[in-house]
């Protein structure tokens, strides 16, 4: 619980991002049940910091697996290491991105195929030869799947779990972005005010630093941007063997030819947000860089954009078909 605090920054120093993070993902790749409310953070007026990192970010992404399910040994049966009620599935060792992120207590996300949109907490992970010649990892999750993933079809990701966060009633002034970054499950950003912000609210699922990191069930409601750039929603894009495009959630697995189409966004509600003025009063970043309005380029399943009001600023990029 982080509530009612005030921070006043009077110097233009490159700040470290203010983060609700899972940087310690080697030992503890989870972060749940955070209440961040009624805080106020000021940065210097006309902050010219060349590296003005985030005013708030949920950070520490990465991922340890992305690929198809090899086998689903049980559904609803006793699962390895979980006692009653869990479930297990097998994934390919060849698609493991890294073991440096502890899979145990990471999130397991069914990204596409049968069972897509479900996530579970991983309670154990171990290498196994259960499939004979195919080296596999046996994952046990905390609850059975409502719809079982299907071997050879469903694509899953294993990434640090950041879930159940309330970011409400805060005020940021002369800052940068306030964002979900990487995995965000069950996050509410509501009744916040952003003033003179170089960026605004961002919903930022994707494959940040490897791994598939969805933003599912995120509600952005009744926030106010004043003389700030607007909010944005798009998947991150990184180079290397893992990347996605800006729009389609296309995700390349670590192996050649592993091209999967996944929904980084599910159940996103952007409702009743207000934008006032333009971001043109900043001496460095504002001029010629008017309010972006709402820049919603990510696509997904169940994205609702409703009741957005613009007063004195352009509408930005809101494609049809959402």
């Amino acid at each position, binding site marked *: *619980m*982080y*509530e*009612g*605090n*005030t*921070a*006043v*920054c*009077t*110097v233009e*120093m*490159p*700040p*470290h*991002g*203010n*983060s*609700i*993070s*899972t*940087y*310690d*993902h080697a*030992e*503890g*790749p*989870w*972060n*749940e049940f*955070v209440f961040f409310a009624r*805080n106020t*953070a000021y*940065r210097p007026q006309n902050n010219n910091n060349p*590296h003005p*990192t985030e005013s708030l970010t949920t950070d*520490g992404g990465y991922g340890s697996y992305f690929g198809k399910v090899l086998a689903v040994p049980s559904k609803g049966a006793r699962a390895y290491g979980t006692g009653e009620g869990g479930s297990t599935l097998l994934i390919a060792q060849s698609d493991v991105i890294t073991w440096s992120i502890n899979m145990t207590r990471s999130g397991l996300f069914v990204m596409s195929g049968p069972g897509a949109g479900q996530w579970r907490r991983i309670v154990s992970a171990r290498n196994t030869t259960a499939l004979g010649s195919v080296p596999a990892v046996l994952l046990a999750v905390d609850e059975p799947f409502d719809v079982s993933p299907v071997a050879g079809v469903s694509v899953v990701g294993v990434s*640090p779990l950041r879930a159940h966060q309330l970011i409400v009633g805060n005020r940021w002034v002369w800052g940068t972005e306030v964002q979900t970054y990487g995995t965000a499950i069950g996050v509410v950003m509501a009744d916040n005010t952003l003033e003179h912000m170089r960026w605004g609210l961002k919903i930022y699922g994707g494959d940040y630093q490897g791994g598939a990191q969805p933003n599912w069930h995120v509600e952005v409601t009744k926030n106010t941007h004043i003389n700030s750039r607007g909010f944005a929603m798009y998947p991150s894009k990184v180079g290397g063997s893992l990347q996605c495009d800006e729009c389609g959630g296309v995700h390349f697995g670590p192996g050649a030819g592993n091209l999967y189409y996944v929904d980084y966004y599910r159940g996103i509600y952007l409702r009743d947000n207000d934008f006032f003025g333009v971001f043109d009063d900043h001496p460095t970043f504002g001029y010629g860089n008017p309010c972006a309005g709402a820049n919603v380029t990510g696509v997904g399943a169940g994205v609702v954009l409703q009741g957005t009001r613009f007063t004195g600023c352009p509408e930005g990029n809101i494609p049809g078909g959402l």
Partner: protein
Amino acid sequence: MIIEGSHTSVEDCFVEQAGVADPAGSFQQVTTIYVHRAQDAILRNNYILWNVSIFDIDVS
């Protein structure tokens, strides 16, 4: 200020010029409140002056 562990509460504090600045590199890290591996921690009604990074919550 580093908070680590469970059931920790910091309330109604005034913190001035807190944090540790690392002048090296392009990203100076200044963290005033760092919550690490904490469960059921409460930070409420504090006032922090000068710092850049007001918090860093690594709950993992």
